[in-house]
């Protein structure tokens, strides 16, 4: 019995620091900025699930696990939003969800927190690094993550649509999560 209590006490700090958050979906957004015909456009995924375990003081036990409903894409352009779920682009019939899971967190030389992980999108899994900005506010926090993806790495816009002079290859992805205790 004493031994079990001892083990439990040793494990306690881990449990305490791997802090799990709830997401406020109404105030959270997963957005991206692409280029089409030399102009920037904004899009967002209206539905996604994020499991966030994060404590800035204990990066070793931080974990992001995000699942995105790709068909919920919205770029405020009816024609584009009809084309994007199609076979040439996201092919949501075959690949309805994208998934990011972190593998480790580290700090860069300038103190920026980075989350290495794997993004699976349209049947392709690639290593992706997010910059992480965590700001506590009251009992909650805001979490902003950023990365830039290459759409062609994931076969988004294949065939004739691979032309990057029409649709830029770089897509900046931004996640803004409002975390609740």
């Amino acid at each position, binding site marked *: 019995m004493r031994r079990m209590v001892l083990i439990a006490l040793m494990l306690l700090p881990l449990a305490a620091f791997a802090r799990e958050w709830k997401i406020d979906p109404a105030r959270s957004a997963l957005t991206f900025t692409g280029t089409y*015909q030399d102009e920037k*456009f904004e899009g967002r995924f209206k539905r996604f699930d994020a499991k966030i375990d994060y404590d800035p003081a204990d990066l070793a036990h931080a974990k992001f696990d995000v699942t995105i409903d790709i068909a919920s894409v919205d770029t*405020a*352009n*009816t*024609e584009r939003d009809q*084309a994007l779920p199609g076979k040439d682009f996201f092919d949501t019939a075959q690949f309805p969800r994208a998934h990011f899971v972190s593998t480790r967190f580290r700090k860069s030389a300038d103190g920026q927190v980075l989350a290495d992980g794997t993004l699976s999108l349209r049947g392709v899994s690639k290593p992706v690094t997010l910059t992480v900005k965590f700001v506590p506010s009251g009992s909650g926090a805001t979490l902003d993550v950023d990365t830039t993806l290459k759409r062609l790495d994931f076969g988004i816009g294949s065939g*004739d649509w691979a032309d990057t002079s*029409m649709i830029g290859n770089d897509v900046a992805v931004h996640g803004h999560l409002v975390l609740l205790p």
Partner: protein
Amino acid sequence: MPLRNTETRWGGIAQFFHWLIALLIIAQGAIGLTMVELGMTPAKVKVFALHKSIGLTILALGLLRLAWRLGQRAPLDPPMPHWQRNAAKLSHFLLYVLILALPLSGWLFNSAANFPLEWFGLVHVPSLTHGLDPVLKAWALRAHVVLFWLLAGLVVVHVAAALWHHFVHRDNVLLRMLPGFEKRRLARGRGVLQ
């Protein structure tokens, strides 16, 4: 040929505007009617971009042309009944209105659909709306189509009237908008005037 209008003929600038805009309207109509049938490919996007660039060009040329037209006198008309003169005035007025309104309705549609707008990939043209506006988009598209068919009908009337003047009345109405022909029938046109 003088650059400014004379009593007997349209000047070089007026003719340049007339024929360039005429050419662009015909090309634009052909492109517009074809492009809507294309499948969703990058080629379609490029043809649409071309259509938009030509439309903006027509709008700019139309404004310059209107300013030039208002800045000086038109050549004198050959004698004709009142109703003909009024019909000509009305149809010319409507042509000017449509040359401006058709590109504007396209620009409005493009804006309300939240598409990018670049003049021949060189100049960014701002949106007329704050992003996507489905109601205005549907309205502008309907206006664009109706205005196009109005213009197409009016162009047919315009061409038919010019040919009628030339071959039936044998006056100078068509010739005064053509480069050259200074001596031949213009002399007769002037003769009719006197």
